[in-house]
Every structure is written in structure tokens, then in C-alpha cells.
């Protein structure tokens, strides 16, 4: 705190030092993009400059070294293909610019070129980054640049300059907001170049479900997607996002099959159960477009297959956004079909399960009741849920899980249930994807993470079609989990998690409304404003409030900190007297002024209290309170 105070009290440095600081701020983000030769060049240059070794000898050394650093940095890129890429030029320019800045620093010249360099470097960096971090950094840099420019004109300490700069930004805020909303945009798509390092591939499932040692999960907190529900929010047990559908049991794993020849069955949806939502999907380098069970429309640039899985036309290598509608209650209609693989089962494996399932098969009940019987059987086996299951016999995986190890997680439950269903004659398939939890929800915003990856089963029931079953819910106890498996979900809502979730929500809102704001959003917003009177009123009130708060904050920042407690306590009275036409003269003491004002308000007591407080050795809170009360009465 003392150091901060000291920092805030520092006086205006020389203009060259301010420029140096601006240069450091502008070069900093470039360092993350530079290749190692250039970074080494910068480090060595910085050391030499700090040590003030800038003689001719060092200048020659730095000039040569810098040239080599640039040549080495771009050594792999000297070909015709790269010459057609804008990013190559931008990168080359930024390297050359930094090189030139360093040389100028060694020469000790502060010319117009070096003065403009911070702005040029910042301009170049925008070609690389378009993340929230960059947004925050860019605003910080702009604030710092403005601060330094103001400081160059103000011979005062840092604290006062910060106040002035903050006041500038506070007044500027409403203008920025209004311009951001209404400034006309054209819908150019972002070019493919740009820094992609902000988003690394995330995946919770890869289209194959492993039962062996590969199945051991390393639960990650990485966000797979962010969902915003626009009309209503589904229940916790309805947050299933479809990824891939697996039919083929290949002993140690379940795989997808080709269902191109099968047409999507017609479905009927209950209107009330339709859910509108928007998804922000992070790059997975796969093609799955995750949709809430059961999707009704296909998002843009994707195709829906028989399994009601939406697949993107190209791998998802950057953040994408899509709108979707899903139905929570649905019914298949018309002629229903299923692939033959949905009934494939190897009767030479899992003899103990076959024995039990044959008994269920022979019962004279519907398929739905049989499925229920299987679930009841699972429950009687007292299976435990654990993300660290014991190894199982892959040749007899169902037997091994249901009768021997009795410990597993969603994949073991799903696999065993799918096989059991096929053994009783019900076509089955495993759906992998994500089962989100409401504990990861703020308002209507939901985060889906890698650790939400899940597998469940769908059974093909006569006259009904494919229906979802959650065999993991049959677990008797939980040994270790991070999954959101329906009723077994453990509430781990710590403060940290809540803070993190809220942070993610803010980040999502910034992404959604700031970084991804485009022509279509602008048009939609303006249309809504023009068509919806209440919305227009809300927007106008919001803007008015923003302007008023900016002005209020500006005035607040302008107000001086009270250093004289006695004077500050009687300030309201002085203000009141001023309104009545009695103004304190600059040379007038408080005593004289209060004496003069005695004709309007009796101020003798106030004067006594004021002087007692003013000239007492220590602060007497009781006296201050008394003075405050007196001033209040006079007011």
C-alpha cells in the first residue's frame, strides 16, 4: 500500500521516459508472436539499453544481430505461397518496426517516427488477436497512451493524471456504447488468418466409446461450448447434447456405422416443449455440432443424419455460433426403421447376462416393460459409479461389469444396457455427447465442459421409435465422480466455482455482444428497437442512465478528497448560505464568515464546535457528530 501511494505520488517523468513506457506496452503483445531469434534480440537489446551501452560498437552489433534475427525468424517462410498471405507481410512489418525502434533507441533519437511507433505497433497487433484478453489489453493500452499524453501536458503527480484520464474515459463511455450499437457495419466475414492460439482443440468424445484402459478419463474443466437458452430453460435431466451415435460393439469399443441409406424418421413435437437456444462451440477439429436432445432443425452449414446427429461440412477449427431448436417431448410418426446393427449381439459372450436376459425376453410384457426390467436388474446388482473403475474382461465386458467388478462409469453402464437390451430383442444404440448440469448455469447461460462428456442409451420401441434411457442412474453408490448423471449428481457448488461460472458468463456476454457483434445482430437489434416500443423505451432509458451515471461519476472523480474534517462537516452549510446569497470571501476566516452569516442563521454554536474540532490535537468523533447534527438542523 505504501509503495502504491509512493507510485501515485511520483511526478511527471521526462517525455522520453513516457514514450519508452508506451513502446514497451505496444511491443509486449508482439513478443508472444515473435520467434526465438527475435526474442533473444529484444532481450539483449533491452539489457544493453538498460546498461547504457549504446556506443558505435554496440550499435553495429545490434544492427547486424537484428538483421540476422529477422532473417532467421522468417527463414521457413520465403516462398511464393507465403508471399500471397497478408499475415506474412503483417508479421514481417511488425518485426521490422520493432527492429527499427530498437535501432532508434540505440541512437538515442526521439523523432516523429519513434513517437508514432507505439500506435503503429498496436495497429499491427490487432491483425493477430481477437480475444477478450486482447480487448482488455487494447483498452488498457489506450488508457495508458491517453494518460501519458495528458501527463505530458500536466505538471502534476500520477494520481492526478489518473483521475483526469479516468474522467475522460468516463465521459467517453456513453459515446462508445452508442457508436458501437448504431455505427453501420457491413458483413465482411473474418479472414482465415489470425492468431488461433487462444483456442485449443477441445473434445469430450471422439466418436468411439472405449471400454478398456483407453476409457480412463482425465476429466478436464475445458469449456466445450456455451449455451444460451432464449425462451425457456430445460430441467436438469433434460440437458443431453447429442454427439455421435454408436451401433457396433467391437469387443473393446463401440463404433459408429454408416446410416446414409436410412431416412430420418418423421417426428411430432409438442409445441410447449420446444426450446430455442444459441450455442457458442469452441474448436474441436471434429465435425459434430452438438444439439440438445431432440433437435428439430439443422443449423447452417451442417447436415443431419438418421441418428439426428448434425455434422458440420468442415472440421470445426474456430469458434462457431449457431442457433437451434430442440423438442423435449416428441413422438416418432410414420413408418419407423432401424439399422440391422442395432440388434447385433454376440451370444457367445457374456453367458451370465444372456441367462438373465433370456428370462426377461420370455416374459409376456411390452418392450418398454422389458427395458424397465433390465434397469431393475441393474439396480439389484448394486453397481457402483466410479471414474476409476477396475479393469474388466473385455471379451465378456457386460458379465465382468455386472457380476464381477460392479464398478464403472457411464460407458460401462451404457454398453451393458445396450447389450442387455439387444439380448432381450430390443434394438439399441449408444449416444455419446454431453450431459450438462444446471450447477453450471447462470440465468439462462450454461457452460458445457469436457468433464460433462457422457454416454447414454436409446432403445427402439415399437410404435414409439428411439427413446432415451439413462442406465447410469441405476448406480447404487458413487465412489468418485465429476459427471452430471441425473439424480446421482453431487452438488459441488463452491464459491470458487460460482465465481468462475459468473466470470464465464460475463466472458460469454462480452463474446456474444461485443466481439461477435456484426451486421446481422445490429439489424436485428435495430429492427427490435423500431418495432417494439417497450424495447425502444428500455434502450433509451438505458442510454439515458448510462449518460447520467457517466456524468455523476465524472463529478465524483472531480471532487477533492476531504482533508479538513471540520471544514468538510460545515461544507453543506456554506453551500446553503451561498444559495442564499452569502458567499465566503477568499480572505475571510470561517469565524468571520459565520459571524457575518449570523443574521441569516444562528451560527454561534457551529462556530464554537468548528473551532474546537479544528484546533484539537486528535479527532473527536463525538464532537464531529455534534457538529454534523447542528449543520443538519440549520439546513
Amino acid at each position, binding site marked *: 500500500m505504501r509503495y502504491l501511494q509512493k507510485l501515485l505520488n511520483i511526478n511527471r517523468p521526462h517525455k522520453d521516459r513516457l514514450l519508452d513506457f508506451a513502446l514497451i506496452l505496444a511491443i509486449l503483445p508482439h513478443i508472444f508472436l515473435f520467434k526465438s531469434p527475435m526474442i533473444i534480440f529484444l532481450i539483449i537489446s533491452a539489457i544493453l539499453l538498460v546498461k547504457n551501452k549504446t556506443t558505435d560498437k554496440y550499435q553495429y552489433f545490434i544492427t547486424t544481430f537484428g538483421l540476422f534475427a529477422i532473417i532467421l525468424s522468417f527463414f521457413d517462410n520465403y516462398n511464393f505461397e507465403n508471399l500471397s498471405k497478408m499475415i506474412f507481410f503483417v508479421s514481417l512489418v511488425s518485426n521490422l518496426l520493432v527492429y527499427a525502434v530498437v535501432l532508434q533507441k540505440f541512437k538515442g533519437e526521439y523523432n516523429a517516427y519513434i513517437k*508514432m511507433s507505439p*500506435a503503429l505497433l*498496436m*495497429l499491427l497487433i*490487432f*491483425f493477430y*488477436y*481477437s480475444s477478450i484478453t*486482447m*480487448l482488455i489489453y*487494447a*483498452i488498457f493500452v*489506450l488508457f495508458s497512451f*491517453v494518460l501519458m*499524453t*495528458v501527463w*505530458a*501536458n*500536466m*505538471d*502534476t503527480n500520477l494520481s*492526478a493524471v489518473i483521475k*483526469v*484520464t479516468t*474522467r*475522460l*474515459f468516463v*465521459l*467517453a*463511455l456513453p*459515446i*462508445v456504447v452508442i*457508436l*458501437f450499437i448504431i*455505427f453501420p*457495419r*457491413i*458483413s*465482411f*466475414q*473474418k*479472414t482465415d488468418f489470425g492468431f488461433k492460439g487462444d483456442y485449443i482443440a477441445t473434445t469430450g468424445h471422439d466418436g468411439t466409446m472405449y471400454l478398456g484402459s483407453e476409457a480412463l478419463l482425465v476429466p478436464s474443466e475445458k469449456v466445450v461450448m456455451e449455451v444460451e437458452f432464449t425462451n425457456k430453460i430445460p430441467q436438469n435431466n433434460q440437458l443431453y447434447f447429442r454427439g455421435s451415435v454408436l451401433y457396433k460393439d467391437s469387443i473393446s469399443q463401440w463404433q459408429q456405422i454408416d446410416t446414409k441409406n436410412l431416412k430420418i424418421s418423421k417426428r411430432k413435437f409438442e409445441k410447449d416443449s420446444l426450446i430455442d437456444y444459441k450455442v457458442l462451440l469452441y474448436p474441436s477439429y471434429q465435425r459434430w455440432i452438438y444439439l440438445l436432445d431432440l433437435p428439430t432443425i439443422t443449423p447452417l452449414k451442417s447436415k443431419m443424419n438418421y441418428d439426428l446427429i448434425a455434422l458440420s461440412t468442415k472440421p470445426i477449427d474456430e469458434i462457431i455460433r449457431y442457433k437451434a431448436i430442440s423438442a423435449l417431448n416428441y413422438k416418432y410418426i410414420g413408418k419407423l426403421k432401424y439399422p440391422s446393427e442395432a440388434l447385433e449381439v454376440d451370444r457367445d459372450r457374456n453367458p451370465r447376462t444372456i441367462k438373465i436376459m433370456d428370462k426377461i425376453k420370455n416374459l409376456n410384457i411390452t418392450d418398454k416393460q422389458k427395458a424397465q426390467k433390465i434397469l431393475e436388474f441393474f439396480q439389484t446388482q448394486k453397481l457402483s459409479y466410479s471414474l476409476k473403475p477396475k479393469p474388466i474382461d473385455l471379451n465378456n465386458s457386460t458379465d465382468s461389469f455386472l457380476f464381477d467388478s460392479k464398478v464403472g462409469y457411464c460407458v460401462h453402464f451404457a454398453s451393458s444396457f445396450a447389450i442387455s437390451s439387444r439380448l432381450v430383442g430390443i434394438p439399441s444404440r449408444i449416444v455419446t455427447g454431453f450431459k450438462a448440469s444446471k450447477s453450471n448455469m447462470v440465468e439462462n447461460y450454461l457452460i458445457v465442459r469436457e468433464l460433462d462428456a457422457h454416454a447414454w442409451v436409446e432403445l427402439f420401441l415399437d410404435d414409439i421409435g428411439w427413446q432415451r434411457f439413462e442406465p447410469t442412474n441405476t448406480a447404487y453408490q458413487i465412489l468418485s465422480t465429476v459427471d452430471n448423471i441425473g439424480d446421482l449428481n453431487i452438488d459441488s457448488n463452491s464459491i470458487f466455482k460460482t465465481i468462475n461460472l459468473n466470470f464465464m458468463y460475463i466472458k460469454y456476454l462480452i463474446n456474444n455482444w*461485443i*466481439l*461477435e*457483434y*456484426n*451486421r446481422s445482430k445490429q439489424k436485428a437489434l435495430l429492427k427490435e428497437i423500431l418495432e417494439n416500443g417497450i424495447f425502444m423505451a428500455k434502450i433509451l432509458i438505458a442510454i439515458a442512465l448510462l449518460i447520467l451515471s457517466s456524468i455523476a461519476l465524472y463529478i465524483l472523480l*472531480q*471532487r*477533492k478528497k476531504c482533508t479538513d474534517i471540520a471544514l468538510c462537516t460545515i461544507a453543506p452549510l456554506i453551500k446553503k448560505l451561498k444559495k442564499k446569497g452569502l458567499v465566503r470571501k*477568499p*480572505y475571510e476566516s470561517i469565524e468571520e464568515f459565520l459571524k457575518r452569516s449570523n443574521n441569516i442563521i444562528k451560527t454561534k454554536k457551529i462556530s464554537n464546535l468548528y473551532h474546537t474540532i479544528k484546533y484539537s490535537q486528535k479527532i473527536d468523533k463525538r464532537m464531529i457528530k455534534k457538529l454534523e447534527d447542528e449543520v443538519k438542523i440549520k439546513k
Partner: protein
Amino acid sequence: MRYLKIFIQISNTIITKPTKFFIFVVISLFVLFFQAYMHNFNIVFIIMFSIFAVSTASSWIGRLNLFYLKFSFVSSDRFFANKISTYRILVENSKDAISYSITCANDTDSKSIPILNDYQREIISLEYKYPKRGEYKIPKLKISSLFPLPHELFYKYEKLDNMIMVFANPIGKSIFSTKLYNQNIRGEYDDFDGIRRFKDGENLSLIHWASYAKNQQLMSKEFIFKEQEHIFKFDIKSMNGDYESRLSQLTLWVLECEKAKFDFTIDLGYEILDSKKGDIYEILTKIAKY
């Protein structure tokens, strides 16, 4: 309504002029605009809007920085034609916020005030040169500032109604080198006689500061002289040269007599000025107005 009135008043009073940094701002906005439009970079849009908005906000803060400054004339040294002299201006910040980086200037001189706290007053001295004798208005003051951002220069003109008497240029032969000079004549300050209104051009050491503190009016201390026996007698008609050079000569002699505490009379033809009857300021004024 009141605020609208102030707003219009501020707009009318404070004049702005773009500086070379304004070109830099315009170019920045232009480049950012193209960069933002090329790729719909919202970060660039935000920076572009921020630069525009901060520049606009700066315009208003800059105007407010100067608007509430009040100026009044305090005093001046003696002004002589074609000679640089100094006058003093009281600058008062009449708002409850600090004003920064103020420059007050006339045609020949400028003074900077880095900070002027809320309701603070500061006296600045400015030099000026009037080419001819006579009574003149105080030169128009130009108050300017580049605060907070230097892309715009804010300035306003302050016209003060106070008059300054510019005496004739004191040039010619010294009284000590003429026959008129007599080694025996002397006069010196004796007892304090009282106070009277301060006259422009008087010695600042004569100011009675206690009166200024009390009534905000400059008063001068008056003394009784002793041993004033000899009187110089100047006659404008009997002097050589044109009238301007005669007046310059007279002014020089008056100043020398004042310094040496000699009494004198000046015959202007239509009026006789007596140093015993009128003070030096009045005598110099009458010569200046001749």
C-alpha cells in the same frame, strides 16, 4: 435550462483550434476504420470509437478547464512609450475543480500556470510595450491551454476595461548634466503621514498590504519629506526640440527629481505643475496627455 445556457455560453466563449496532433487523430481513425471494416474486428471498432469519444470528451474538459477562469487587473509598473514594462493580472479559478496548464499571453509576453486549484487566485506579471504616450486599455489577454489532450488548442480572449497611462519616453539630457542641477538640494523620507489610494506606476514598496487584505483595495503609504529647499523650474516653451522630445526630456527630469527627492515645477503653458502640490504620477500623467 440553466445548464443549456451554460453549455451555449461555454461554446461561444471558448474557441478551439486543431493542432498537428489533430491530424494524427484523424489519420488514426481513418486507418482503424479501414482495418475494422476489412475484417469486422470489433476490438478495432471499439478502439476507434474510444479514440473518437475520448477526443470529444477532451474537447469538453478542455473548454471547462478555461471557462471558469476569471481575470482582473491588479497593478502595473510605470509604462513609458516604446519601453517594455510590467503589469499584473489576478487569475482566479471560480469553479470547484482544478484547472491545469494555463497560458496567459498578450502580444509580447506569456506566462504559464501549471495548476490552479479550485477557488485559488494567482497573480501573474506580463510585460508589454506601448509605442506612444497616452492612456490605453490593457492589452487583450489570450488564455490558452492544450489540456487535457493536445490535438486541440483551447483559448479565449479576455478584455479588461482598466486603463494604463503610458508616459512619454524618458529620454534626453540628464538633469545632473545641466546647469539646473545644484549639489545642495536634497530631500528625504521622514515621518509616516498616512495612506492614500495607490496610483499606477508607483513603487510597489509603498503599497499598504494590510489595507489590501482588509478591503481588497490597493493603498499607498505617504511620507513627509524634510529639507526641501530648492525647487527646479522647468518651462516647456523655453526647451529645445519638438514637443515630443521636450515631453520626453521633462519626463526624464521628473523621474530624476523623484529619485533624488528634488522639488520642481513645470510650466506647461496652460498649467503649472508643482511637485509639492501634486504627486509624481499626476505630473507624469499630465505630461503624457499634453
